[in-house]
């Protein structure tokens, strides 16, 4: 791969520095792909056979279908929810926002399990309906169950960036539309929505790629996706070459999706011409109730239901004499490592997204696309790739905290990338030029002019990464320092051995801790006008 630094950057020292850092980040992101290539090349012919086999192709079709449907579902849920909680006088809007973002903290297998317990053929809901003669509910297993679980627990990937975009969007365009006599609806569809496109598409991309990588929900719902096949290969046969061949297919799909997303972005730049002012709030009036029903239904299904099931499991177990244990060190470890990873990942995303927005060209495009490759892979693939490189080429770092945080960065950088990118898009370069013209250095201008405007996007990015890291399992299990216990590890380990009381308790604490950054973010937001 030859990389050409654009000519106009040649004499710009900070730009070269940023380019080099971005290049280092992109190189790190390539490690999993390199590992897969090494594996696939063990027996190239056999790998091609696996990749082009009918089994792989049909699983691929299933995966793509699920990813597309879940992305659409997430957009449908998240965009109205983001608008309701930022631009209207919906009561307790910020509380709703916090509640709406928390489903992200629930591990997908826990989420799917609670859906089965509630909506299963003979689940809780069926029990409620039994007096009405309902003996059995339709099967939740398969495509629709997987779709429901993934949509309900990934829509915050769209909600957070869209909300950040709505928060920092300049209102002058909307005012212009209204002054021309356009209604709220027309203003929303014609003026606001197009400005939201980069953030919404970035969020939908995260959902799609997450679905490619997910194993928890598809395994509980028994949906034969590609990631499920990858796990069957690893778990069933320890055949790492065959698993790598299938994973390679996932990388290719991810690349196609990422490139396609690039085309939908267009050339549009939506930055304010004047200093940004706070957005207008719309009075919902009679529609307030409809808005409340909407957000409470989503919160009910995606948060109250799983928490309720967890609470039921805890109380059930306690009444049978089971006990919950102090999980202080696991809680501290979880919060600490997730916070650490969030800061590192956002910091790594800044140079890459800066390049992509301010120095568009082949160089920045390649770096940005490459950064997405790790995210579509099941955690076990990334984990084993870093086990391989860590144990054999960096034994000093192997199974230490820095390597674990590095693994999280490789896994979750795209979450920070989309959001910070959308943030850069909204900043008017003129504000930076003004700073430069006053004789300030580029570094000074970046920290005093650019960065403050990026804050909503950066905190949304950090929160996303935090919420995802705190529930991450495969990399945590294989790469953490020995004895480094986290809540996600406990939830998995205890529930797989049917210690439901303790598992449900740990899961509840996990969700509670995840609420902290969301609450801080909601409180710190600029108070709406």
């Amino acid at each position, binding site marked *: 791969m030859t990389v050409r630094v654009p000519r106009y950057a040649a004499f710009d020292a900070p730009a070269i520095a940023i380019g080099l850092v971005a290049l280092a980040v992109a190189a790190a992101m390539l490690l999993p792909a390199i590992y897969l290539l090494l594996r696939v090349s063990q027996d190239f012919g056999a790998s091609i056979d696996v990749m082009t086999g009918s*089994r792989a192709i049909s699983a691929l079709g299933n995966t793509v279908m699920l990813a597309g449907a879940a992305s659409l579902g997430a957009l449908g849920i998240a965009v109205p929810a983001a608008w309701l909680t930022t631009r209207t006088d919906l009561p307790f809007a910020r509380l709703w926002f916090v509640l709406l973002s928390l489903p992200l903290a629930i591990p997908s297998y826990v989420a799917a399990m609670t859906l*089965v*317990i509630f909506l*299963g053929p*003979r689940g809780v809901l069926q029990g409620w309906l039994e007096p009405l003669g309902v003996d059995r509910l339709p099967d939740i*297993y398969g495509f629709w169950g997987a779709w429901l679980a993934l949509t309900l627990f990934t829509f915050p990937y769209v909600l957070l960036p869209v909300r950040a975009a709505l928060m920092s969007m300049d209102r002058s365009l909307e005012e212009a539309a209204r002054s021309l006599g356009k209604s709220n609806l027309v203003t929303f569809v014609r003026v606001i929505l197009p400005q939201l496109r980069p953030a919404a598409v970035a969020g939908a991309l995260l959902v799609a790629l997450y679905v490619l990588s997910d194993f928890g929900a598809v*395994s*509980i719902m028994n949906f*034969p996706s590609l990631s499920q*096949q990858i796990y*069957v*290969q*690893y*778990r*069933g*046969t*320890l055949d*790492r070459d065959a698993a790598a061949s299938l994973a390679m297919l996932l990388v290719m799909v991810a690349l196609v999706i990422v490139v396609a997303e690039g085309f939908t972005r267009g050339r549009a730049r939506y930055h304010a011409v004047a200093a940004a002012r706070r957005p207008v709030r719309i009075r919902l009036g009679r529609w307030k109730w409809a808005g409340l029903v909407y957000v409470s239904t989503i919160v009910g299904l995606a948060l109250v239901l799983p928490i309720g099931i967890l609470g039921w*499991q805890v109380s*059930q177990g306690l*009444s*049978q*004499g*089971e006990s919950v244990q102090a999980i202080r060190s696991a809680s501290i470890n979880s919060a600490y490592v997730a916070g*650490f990873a969030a*800061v*590192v990942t*956002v*910091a790594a995303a*800044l140079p890459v997204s800066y390049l992509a927005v301010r120095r568009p060209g082949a160089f920045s495009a390649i770096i940005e696309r490459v950064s997405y490759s790790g995210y579509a892979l099941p955690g*076990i693939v990334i984990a*084993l790739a870093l*086990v*391989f490189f860590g*144990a*054999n080429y960096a*034994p*000093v770092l*192997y*199974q*230490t905290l*820095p390597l674990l945080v*590095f693994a999280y960065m490789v896994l979750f950088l795209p979450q920070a990338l989309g959001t910070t990118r959308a943030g850069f898009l909204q900043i008017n370069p003129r504000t930076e030029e003004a700073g430069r013209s006053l004789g300030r250095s580029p570094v000074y201008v970046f*920290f*005093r002019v650019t*960065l*403050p405007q990026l*804050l909503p996007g*950066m905190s949304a990015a950090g929160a996303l990464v935090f919420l995802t890291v705190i529930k991450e399992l*495969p990399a945590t299990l*294989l790469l953490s*320092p*020995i004895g480094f216990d986290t809540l996600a590890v406990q939830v998995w*380990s205890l529930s*797989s*051995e*049917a*210690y*439901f009381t*303790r598992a449900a308790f740990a899961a509840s604490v996990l969700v509670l801790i995840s609420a902290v950054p969301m609450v801080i973010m909601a409180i710190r937001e600029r108070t709406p006008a």
Partner: protein
Amino acid sequence: MKHQARLSGIFILAILGALALVAVACGGDNGDANGDNGQPEAPTEAANQTPAAEPEDRGSASGSITVYSGRAEALIGPIIEQFEQETGIDVRVRYGGTPELAATLLEEGSNSPADLYIGQDAGSLGLLAAEGLFLPLPEDILGLVPAQYRADDGDWVGLSGRARVVVYNTDAIDPDTLPDSIFDYTDPQWSGRIGWAPTNASFQSFVTGMRVVHGEDATREWLEDIAANGAREYPNNTSIVEAVAAGEVEVGFANHYYLFRFLAERGEGFGARNFYFDNGDIGGLMNVAGAGVLTTTRNEPAAQRFIEYMLQQDAQDYFAQETFEFPLAPNVNVSFDVPPLAELEPVRIDLTDLGDLRGTIELLQSTGVLP
């Protein structure tokens, strides 16, 4: 605006701090970042110490060992703590899934920091043995369990037994009417009433066992017939037990000990129970959780001492009473409500043969049981 300026100041500090940490990480400074991990130095030489340590070395074993445990902390943590207290040997445990840790060992190769591997089923142990990852265990340790619960060449030894059972719904099924062979569930009367877990390792091990005992053709036929009976698929043992109790299905093929956890969690009213095959039918295959010392060990005496300890009275008692498994050392009795191992008379097979997982996956795929 002033408020915002202060915020950005905090953020700048946070980011600079993060960059510094990244720099530390990239610089390879393992100072405090390493924490309690204490990475081993130059592990490759250790692989040469092939001759097994003498029993007297084991008695005075000290230092520390690193264990990769596919057995969950809830199932083995307390007895490991007891081992540490009694022997003074420091045990550092990495918990994880049995197959995931096996794959990790394969990736780590000769640079693995692990001394010992504990697997939840004989299949993974057999696979690692075939890859040459284990040092043979001494005769006196192997002798602690009956021959059928250890590897023939002494690479690994079983620590506790886990039987395959049929879990049945107590409302829908009278256990006296249940067939006494797993092959009878191919009868059309079981159509739509069975739950199984084709992606689950313990089920796959059972299928391997069936292939070993009854051959490829009989196993293929059984798989096809059960699938034709509309068996419902579940991801694992716990979801099968849950589904049986809820009445989603009437019977399920599972491991025996999950039911006891459900009884502890949900009480005696829980609507499922175990049916044990006590006639040597393959449906009651006795699999084991077991352990082996790895060729990468730097403390073979302590690793052997660990395995020996797990086969003595206290630990075997612990497995029987706390994790509801069958003790394998013959002098320990089962104190809970299952038939003792001796009465079950499970089918005798060479558990090393369960390592042929690849053949099983291929069979499951060619019959369409796995997609």
